[in-house]
C-alpha cells in the first residue's frame, strides 16, 4: 500500500490554527458522589488536575429542625437531635437533655451522669472509628474498614441493650436515664473494653505507619491554627491544628472532671494529624469508659424531679399524683421557666451547642443548634485549593462532615 501523501492544501498553516484558549474545567463533585459520604455538592473549578476554586451547595437534606422544634414539647425534640450527627447520636441526645436540665435547674445524680459519660464516649469511639476507617477506604485501604466495623456493631449492640435502638437512639430522658444499666449491658461494655484494644491496635498497625497511607495524607489539606480559629473549627479538627480546646475539659459537664484523660494535639492540621488525633482520642475515650464503669456510683439513675421525669409505670397505676404527672409530661404541659441558655458539649466533630430561648410555654420559643460541621465545612475550598482532586477527597473525608449535622 502506498503511503498516503498529505496534499499541501490540507495542512493548515500556523496562521489558520484557532488561537489556544485556556479554559478551566468545571467538575461536579456530588451531591450523590460516593466519596462525599453524604449529600452535598462541591462545584470545583479545575485547571488540569489542580483545583483552582470550589463552591459548596448544601441543604439537600435540610429538615428545618429549628422550626419543628418550636412546636414540640421538650422531650420530643430529642428525636430531632438524633438525626443531626447520626454517627454519634447519644452525644446529641444528652447534650439536649443537659441543656433542658440547665434551664430547669435539675441536678442529675452521679450514677446517671456516669452512665451518660460511658455512652457518650462509646459514641465518640464509633464516630471516630467510622471517620478514620472511611479515610482508609478513600486512600484505597479497604480491609481496615472491614476489621473495625465489627467493633462498631458491638457498640450498637450496647446501645440496643441500653435504649432499644441502634442508630437514632433517643437515649436517656430529661432528668437522667430511662432505665438503669442492665447486667447484660455491663457485661457487653466490659467485653468491649477487653476486645476493642487489639482491634484498634491492629488497625493502627495497618494504617498509621503505612508508607502509602502516610504519603497520601501528610501535608494534604493543611490548615493553620489562625485560619482554623477564624473558620470556627472545634473538636478533633481544631486540635489537629494545634490548640487543645476541648469542651469536656474547659467546661466540664456530666462529671467529666472526675476522669483522667489526655487531649491529643496535632501540629500541622493536615489530614494525617486529624487521623492521629482521632486515633488517640479513641484510646482516651476507652480509658474514660473503663474509669466510669469501674467507679460507677450506686444510687438512683434519675433526678428527683417528678414534674419533669416520667414516673415508673407501677406508680402511675397506683398513685394519683404520679398519674397526673405522667399525663402532664406526656402531653408536654411542663412548667418551664422563662430564660435563655446556651449549653455546649464535645460532640464527635467539635463543640455542639444548644441555644435555647424559653418563653415559659410548652415548646421552645427559639432553639438553635450550633452544628460544628456546618461551621467548619466552609473552610473546605480554602483547604483544597491547589491540590489534586484525590487529595481533596481525603481532606473532606478527614474533616468528617456529616450531612445530617451540616443541614439540620
Amino acid at each position, binding site marked *: 500500500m502506498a503511503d498516503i501523501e498529505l496534499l499541501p492544501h490540507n495542512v493548515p498553516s500556523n496562521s489558520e490554527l484557532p488561537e489556544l484558549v485556556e479554559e478551566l474545567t468545571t467538575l461536579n463533585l456530588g451531591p450523590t458522589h460516593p466519596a462525599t459520604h453524604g449529600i452535598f455538592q462541591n462545584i470545583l473549578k479545575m485547571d488540569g488536575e489542580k483545583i483552582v476554586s470550589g463552591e459548596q451547595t448544601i441543604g439537600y437534606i435540610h429538615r428545618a429542625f429549628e422550626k419543628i422544634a418550636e412546636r414540640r414539647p421538650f422531650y420530643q425534640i430529642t428525636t430531632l437531635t438524633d438525626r443531626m450527627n447520626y454517627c454519634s447520636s447519644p452525644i446529641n441526645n444528652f447534650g439536649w437533655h443537659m441543656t433542658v436540665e440547665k434551664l430547669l435547674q435539675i441536678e442529675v445524680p452521679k450514677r446517671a451522669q456516669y452512665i451518660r459519660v460511658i455512652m457518650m464516649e462509646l459514641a465518640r469511639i464509633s464516630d471516630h472509628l467510622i471517620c478514620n476507617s472511611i479515610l482508609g477506604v478513600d486512600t484505597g485501604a479497604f480491609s481496615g474498614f472491614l476489621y473495625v466495623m465489627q467493633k462498631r456493631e458491638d457498640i450498637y449492640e450496647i446501645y440496643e441493650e441500653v435504649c432499644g435502638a441502634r442508630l437514632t437512639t433517643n437515649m436517656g430522658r430529661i432528668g437522667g436515664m430511662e432505665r438503669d444499666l442492665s447486667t447484660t449491658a455491663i457485661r457487653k461494655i466490659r467485653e468491649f473494653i477487653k476486645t476493642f484494644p487489639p482491634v484498634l491496635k491492629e488497625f493502627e498497625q495497618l494504617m498509621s505507619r503505612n508508607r502509602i497511607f502516610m504519603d497520601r495524607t501528610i501535608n494534604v489539606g493543611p490548615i493553620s491554627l489562625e485560619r482554623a480559629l477564624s473558620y470556627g473549627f472545634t473538636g478533633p479538627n481544631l486540635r489537629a491544628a494545634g*490548640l487543645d480546646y476541648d469542651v469536656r475539659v474547659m*467546661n466540664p459537664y456530666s462529671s467529666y472532671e472526675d476522669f483522667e484523660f489526655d487531649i491529643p494535639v496535632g501540629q500541622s492540621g493536615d489530614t494525617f494529624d486529624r487521623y492521629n488525633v482521632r486515633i488517640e482520642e479513641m484510646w482516651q475515650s476507652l480509658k474514660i469508659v473503663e474509669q466510669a464503669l469501674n467507679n460507677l456510683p450506686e444510687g438512683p439513675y434519675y433526678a428527683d424531679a417528678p414534674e419533669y421525669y416520667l414516673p415508673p409505670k407501677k406508680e402511675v397505676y397506683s398513685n394519683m399524683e404520679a398519674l397526673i404527672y405522667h399525663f402532664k409530661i406526656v402531653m408536654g404541659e411542663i412548667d418551664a421557666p422563662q*430564660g435563655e441558655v446556651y449549653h*455546649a458539649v464535645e460532640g464527635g466533630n467539635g463543640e455542639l451547642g444548644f*441555644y435555647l430561648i424559653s418563653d415559659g410555654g410548652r415548646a421552645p420559643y427559639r432553639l438553635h443548634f*450550633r452544628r460544628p460541621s456546618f461551621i467548619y465545612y466552609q473552610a473546605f475550598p480554602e483547604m483544597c485549593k491547589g491540590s489534586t482532586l484525590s487529595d481533596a477527597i481525603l481532606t473532606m473525608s478527614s474533616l468528617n462532615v456529616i450531612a445530617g449535622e451540616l443541614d439540620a
Partner: protein
Amino acid sequence: MLSNQEVAEELLGKFGDQVYDFEEPYGLLTLSTTREEIISILEFLNKHKNYQISFLTDLTGVHYPDGKEREFMVVYHLHSFVHNFRIRLKVFISEADIHVPTATGLYASANWMERETYDFYGILFDGHPDLRRILNIEEMDYFPMRKEYPLEDATREDKSDALFGR
C-alpha cells in the same frame, strides 16, 4: 479567670450608653448594643490584649413579632480560650430597616452563619460577600423561621378525618 463584672465595666467605660441591658442568665454575660457599634465591639473584644475574646462560637437570629421597632434580634456568642470566658451580644433591629453590618471581616466563620440567618429570617448583612440562601432553595420567596409561618398546631380540632382523625 475573667469575671463578668470586669468585662462589663470595661465595655461600659469604652462604649458608654451604647451598651445596655446587662444580664447574667445562667452565668453567661449578656448585653445588648446597637448595630452601629456591634462591629467595633466585636473588634474591641477580639483585639483586646488581655481578654482575647476572639472566637465566634455562634451567630443566629430570633424573631419577636410583638417587639415595636425591635422585631428581630441577632445574637453573637463569643468565647475566649485564654480565659475560658463566654459572652453573648444582642442587636435588635426593626423589620422596616432590617440591616446589620457583617462580621465576615473579623471572622471567616461568620460567612455561612450569616447566610443561614438571612435564609431563615431575611436579615440583611451589609457588606457580606455572598448573601444568598444556603439551606433552602433559592426560589423560595419567604423567610420560613419568621413567626408568621406557624407549624400546624397539634391540638387543633377543626380538621376531621374519619380514618386518621385528629
